[in-house]
């Protein structure tokens, strides 16, 4: 009897230990092993500089984007079971998710809010990387290829926009349909291949079931997996590049001087040069064990991000307009907000030149094709410039990993002007364009939309 009780107490102790006990390593070696013991933790470094860990260097924007992507994936999996990708039933199935599925409203709203925020945070992440000059490797991290990671990042930004845009169509309401009509018409303005691009985007000659199933398949089956693969690559590259660029700004430890041969983290990677061991410098900054320091902060960021999305979803509804119809156009018809800078550019650069009378002969009225300029040339230039920029960055290596380094003043100003222009155009397109694409200042109210009764 006594032994049985003792046994039960032991079981209870084991369970308690399993649930609550913390691991207190006795030696540095034991602390380092934490990374290797757990599959989920193996992608952390053993040690990390305090600067990389700080809140105000990276603002953890990449982590936030990743958490948003995970929220989107999980809520998206639930929505796949509830949503019907057919033009007859898509709209109704969204109404059902909103009104009768338990917590359906919460899941749909979280999916939509997280999608908007992911677009924004991936963009903020890019701004951070640019302003800290973190797209370059220095002689502190000689085997790094941060430029490659910058390119992966730009591709991820474009894919994030595509994911968001393909999801925008799925409710099959007026908001969705006309956003796609606008997109397809802008694409149509591309010279020579315009018609083909439009055909591909619509999945046929006109928007309908073909379009819906095409975008649905892209949204749930193609793009998420490409993005998952690229995110993994992106994260893996951070390790291969020697961590965040803030490490480079700390400089190399003076004593010792020469690079040290190491075996610690090259086994799984294909590091250039000596392998399986690689050589590295000891960094000057103060370091801590990544477990638990990074893990704790990641959990904080995760929980706060999930919390904020939940908060938004509880208190703020997401739109679902009238069922899609091509019989009438909503006024104003708008693309999703992250493409409104483009729509704004298209509307600004579309100029109807009236008849010009020069006495002897006259030039008939014509229209300057804004779709081509605002829809193809300018966004192409913006993305192209972003991809090429690191090659033309001639600032000293000491500028890498430092916010607003003096030597990068000019390029930072140029970059911020472009960002500001995008932000202003987006703001105008979102909040100041009312019916008939008329300009309304923030304090002016829009005319009320007519109703049946």
């Amino acid at each position, binding site marked *: 009897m006594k032994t049985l009780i003792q046994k039960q107490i032991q079981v209870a102790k084991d369970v308690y230990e399993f649930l609550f006990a913390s691991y207190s390593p006795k030696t540095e070696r034991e602390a380092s092993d934490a990374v290797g013991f757990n599959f989920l933790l193996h992608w952390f470094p053993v040690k990390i500089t305090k600067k990389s860990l700080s809140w105000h260097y990276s603002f953890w924007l990449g982590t936030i984007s990743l958490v948003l992507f995970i929220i989107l994936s999980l809520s998206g999996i639930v929505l796949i079971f509830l949503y019907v990708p057919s033009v007859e039933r898509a709209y109704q199935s969204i109404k059902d998710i909103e009104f009768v599925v338990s917590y359906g409203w919460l899941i749909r709203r979280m999916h939509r809010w997280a999608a908007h925020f992911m677009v924004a945070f991936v963009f903020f992440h890019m701004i951070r990387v640019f302003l800290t000059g973190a797209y370059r490797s220095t002689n502190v991290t000689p085997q790094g290829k941060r430029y490659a990671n910058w390119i992966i990042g730009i591709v991820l930004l474009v894919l994030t926009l595509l994911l968001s845009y393909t999801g925008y169509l799925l409710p099959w309401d007026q908001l969705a349909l006309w956003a796609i009509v606008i997109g397809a018409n802008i694409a149509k303005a591309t010279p020579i291949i315009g018609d083909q691009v439009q055909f591909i985007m619509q999945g046929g000659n006109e928007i309908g079931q073909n379009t819906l199933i095409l975008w649905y398949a892209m949204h749930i089956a193609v793009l998420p997996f490409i993005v998952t693969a690229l995110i993994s690559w992106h994260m893996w590259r951070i390790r291969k590049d020697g961590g965040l660029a803030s490490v480079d700004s700390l400089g190399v430890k003076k004593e010792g001087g020469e690079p040290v041969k190491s075996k610690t983290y090259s086994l799984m990677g294909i590091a250039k040069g000596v392998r399986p061991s690689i050589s590295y410098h000891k960094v000057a900054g103060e370091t801590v064990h990544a477990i638990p320091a990074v893990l704790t902060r990641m959990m904080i960021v995760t929980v706060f991000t999930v919390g904020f999305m939940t908060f938004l979803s509880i208190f703020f509804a997401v739109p679902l307009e009238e069922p899609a119809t091509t019989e009438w156009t909503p006024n104003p018809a708008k693309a999703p907000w992250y493409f409104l800078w483009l729509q704004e550019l298209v509307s600004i650069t579309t100029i109807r030149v009236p008849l010009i009378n020069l006495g002897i002969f006259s030039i008939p009225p014509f229209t300057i094709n804004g779709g081509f300029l605002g829809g193809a040339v300018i966004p192409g230039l913006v993305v192209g410039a972003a991809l090429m920029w690191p090659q033309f960055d001639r600032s000293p290596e000491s500028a890498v990993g430092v916010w607003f380094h003096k030597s990068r003043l000019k390029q930072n100003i140029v970059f911020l002007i472009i960002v500001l222009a995008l932000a202003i155009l987006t703001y105008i397109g979102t909040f100041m364009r009312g019916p008939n694409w008329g300009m309304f200042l923030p304090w002016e109210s829009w005319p009320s939309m007519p109703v049946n*009764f």
Partner: protein
Amino acid sequence: MKIKDEILLFSSGIVILILTFLAFGKDGFAEWKGVQSEFLDIAEAKIGEKRAKEFQTGIQMIWVPEIKVVDRCKTCHMAIDIPGFESEKQPFSTHPNLEQWNETHPFKNYGCTTCHGGQGFAVTTKEAHGNVKHWERPLLSNDMAKEYGFNKASELMEVNCNSCHRRETDTPGMPNINMAKKLIQDKNCAQCHIMDGKNGGTLGPEITYVGSKHPETFGFDGVEGKRSVMNWHIQHFKLPAKVSKGSIMPPFGFSDEEIRALSILVMSWRKVKVPMEYVPYKRD
């Protein structure tokens, strides 16, 4: 730094816990659940505990795929098809003239929104009654009817009746539409307009499906007062050229009553598919 992080982690956990409770609350204490328990109390007092228990709770729905009706109105209007609750307030009362309606338009075949309007999908009062943005067919209420000079909602509801009764000339219970149909004959509107998709003059626009025209496609520059399609038609029948610039349609000098009737008639000309068993037919 370590301790600060742990405090942050702990507080973020508290935040998510609170939010979880809020989400539970919002879903678990949905408006209709309160309405149902209130109704069950009333029913218990009225017909006894045993019979009150027979009411099914949870979301109740009339689903008629043939005419695309998904009406969850019964979730709150629980006694709508149960006699004996005539004296109760809305949403707890029985449908007026239940027996007659059950015979001519059984709820299980017609749903609620087919005649009354409103958003059948929704299960909150505001959204179900359809007085929300992006829902073009709101519940036709007494207040709304009075706004346009009718006496009660049923007169305004003739606009919905006529979806199926369009080809009839004299339908019991539809005095306004009947009057308007007679006016259409008397004034010979077909002289200028195509109204049945086939025959008619071409001086004026075709108006076979003018009831499906979206409010945003009407021009409201010449319309005084509320920007509604009903108002547009009322003022258009009064002075066509004032509302529709350049129109050659003459003012016919209709009375206010006739104008109201004509307005709901043209608004009833919606593009709907009526299954054969819903087409009214009288054997001679």
